[in-house]
């Protein structure tokens, strides 16, 4: 019984809690954050159960209102969506636990709408992933985007402007996506993804299909911060408050990447995508440029959050590159990187939040070696996450790059392989720079002894999520064979 309703339960949990939080929050503000934690925890539990259930029993299709598609709207819980739902809900759960402390400082008195919106954003993301209807996807996309804009608008002084720019670009992207859906609907007469997949081969040559594909890629690419459309990301992530960034950065772009996967690999299929123009290759090249651009810009930054934001642009490139490779290894690498990057980025942004809370800034040039004494666990987590970002074994980050490299070789795509290697080096540059600052004395100041710092670690509710993420990176590194085994089964071809 519960199995057949699972897709709905996951999404509806968030609706329920987004309603409960105002109800209780108007009465007692302090309850908002625990409620949000409970909500995402329940959803994470559902998605974990659902994924196990998927492995045993296969996919679930849930018909809303009892109307079978293509008449009604369905939620599809298959391997890909199950995997993504599990990743984002688990990450969100920990980030929401984390956000309790910083929220008291960053937006006092606004907990109620904040957490209600966080729940709504998760609803949007889950809905986008689960839905089997292209227009329904748009609706959820807007829910997620709108709440995302709002969460970003909370933060430093320029935050609303960053959010406004994101809103303009993001809504334009969403509108283009809608136009693409319109084209597809015009020529196929259906909105259901499964239905459309079956029809697609007959319309592959039509110019409207190609245009629809381009529009959708552009529209979703805005959300995914694919290279030329990434302009909104650095400012937004930098000025937004810690809890928002930690919540949006690991999840938002991934979900957009999911849609690209769904559209390009499932609805169109790679042959049809490339039938008229080599679109997947173009996307891959854009991803490559994005990887290099993001890495180089990250090196130039002195603000840790901004650096991480640029690094996000680069890391998204890996995922999209795996998509454009369109072979099993590339797919597995991209999927694994979704998981890894979600965890790494959440961990790193949480660390920058820890530093902001305690030090009041996260400016790399002001880091010194007393941090190691003051925040031993935070810094240990940072080391793990950073080394994983660089891609050194046995941490998780290495393996996604390994599979991506295998994928590029399978396609004999030496350009992409070179990009992966070069960007790993660039990653090393900007992460080891921080490690050097934190773990060593500054030679230029002529300092003889390490600055003494007393133990000043953040509270447990902030520390635990950070360290759990760091540990899970190691665990994933050793367990990735299992994960990849599952992922290879999901691959559609």
């Amino acid at each position, binding site marked *: 019984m519960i199995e057949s*309703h699972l897709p*709905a339960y996951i999404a*509806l949990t968030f*609706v*329920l809690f987004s*309603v409960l939080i*105002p*109800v209780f929050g*108007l009465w007692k503000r302090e309850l908002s954050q625990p409620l949000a934690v409970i909500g995402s925890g329940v959803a994470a539990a559902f998605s974990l159960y659902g994924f196990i259930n998927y492995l045993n029993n296969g996919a679930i299709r*849930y*018909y*809303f*209102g*009892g109307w079978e598609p293509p008449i009604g709207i369905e939620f599809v819980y298959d391997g890909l969506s199950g995997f993504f739902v599990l990743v984002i809900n688990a990450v969100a759960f920990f980030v929401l636990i984390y956000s309790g402390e910083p929220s008291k400082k960053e937006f006092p008195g606004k907990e109620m709408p904040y957490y209600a919106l966080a729940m709504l954003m998760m609803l949007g993301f889950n809905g986008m992933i689960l839905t089997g209807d292209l227009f329904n996807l748009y609706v959820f996309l807007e829910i997620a985007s709108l709440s995302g804009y709002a969460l970003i608008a909370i933060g430093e002084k320029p935050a609303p402007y960053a959010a406004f720019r994101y809103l303009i670009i993001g809504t334009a992207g969403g509108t283009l996506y809608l136009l693409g859906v319109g084209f597809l609907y015009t020529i196929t007469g259906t909105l259901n993804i499964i239905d459309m997949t079956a029809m697609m081969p007959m319309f592959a040559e039509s110019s409207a299909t190609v245009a629809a594909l381009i529009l959708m890629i552009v529209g979703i690419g805005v959300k995914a911060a694919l290279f030329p459309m990434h302009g909104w990301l650095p400012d937004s992530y930098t000025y937004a408050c810690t809890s928002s960034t930690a919540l949006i950065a690991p999840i938002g772009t991934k979900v957009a990447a999911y849609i690209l996967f769904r559209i390009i690999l499932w609805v169109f299929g790679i042959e049809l995508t490339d039938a008229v123009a080599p679109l997947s290759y173009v996307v891959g090249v854009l991803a490559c440029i994005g990887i290099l651009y993001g890495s180089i810009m990250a090196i130039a930054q002195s603000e840790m959050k901004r650096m991480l934001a640029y690094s996000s642009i680069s890391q998204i490139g890996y995922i999209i590159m795996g998509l454009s490779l369109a072979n099993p290894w590339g797919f597995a690498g991209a999927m694994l990187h979704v998981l890894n990057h979600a965890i790494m980025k959440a961990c790193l942004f949480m660390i920058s939040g820890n530093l902001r809370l305690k030090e009041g800034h996260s400016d790399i040039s002001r880091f010194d070696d007393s941090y190691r004494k003051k925040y031993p666990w935070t810094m240990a987590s940072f080391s793990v996450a950073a080394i994983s970002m660089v891609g050194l074994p046995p941490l998780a980050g290495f393996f996604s790059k390994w599979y991506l490299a295998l994928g590029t070789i399978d396609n004999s795509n030496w350009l992409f392989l070179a990009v992966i290697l070069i960007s790993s080096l660039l990653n090393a540059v900007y992460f080891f720079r921080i490690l050097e600052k934190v773990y060593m004395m500054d030679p230029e100041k002529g300092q003889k002894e390490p600055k003494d710092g007393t133990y000043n670690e953040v509270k447990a509710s902030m520390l635990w999520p950070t360290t759990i993420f760091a540990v899970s990176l190691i665990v994933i590194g050793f367990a990735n064979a299992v994960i990849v085994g599952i992922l290879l089964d999901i691959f559609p071809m």
Partner: protein
Amino acid sequence: MRRQFDSPIVILGSRLLSPYIMVFGWYVIFHGHYSPGGGFQGGALLAASILLIRVAGGRRISRLQIQEFATTPLAVIGVVIYFATGLVSMAMGGYFLDYEMLPIPGLDPAWLRYYGILIIEIGIGLAVMAILIMIYDNMVRGEDYA
């Protein structure tokens, strides 16, 4: 906006117009089955009728109508009506928002659907009205950024 307009004609005109718009709003919600209209349009009309007074009369008069603090609960109630309809049908063994499963005795499925749609339209109408007023109120008040 914040203060009352100086001209009495404006406020008088809006006070005259407002009830009719409101009635029309309710009509649109309930008559959505037969003619164009429904929850959104009706809710927007209801909101318009109240906003009209607010625009003309300023904040002082707005207290006489729906007060600012009441909008959030109203919006929640609107969402809950819709959500609960879905949950009830789910609890009765159907899919989410499967109106055939609503526990109203003595009606065949088609009429159940009819009433199901009506219920959610009311929910939508309430929520839209409350939220549009909420947006207006908050925007007029402005932000008190430190």
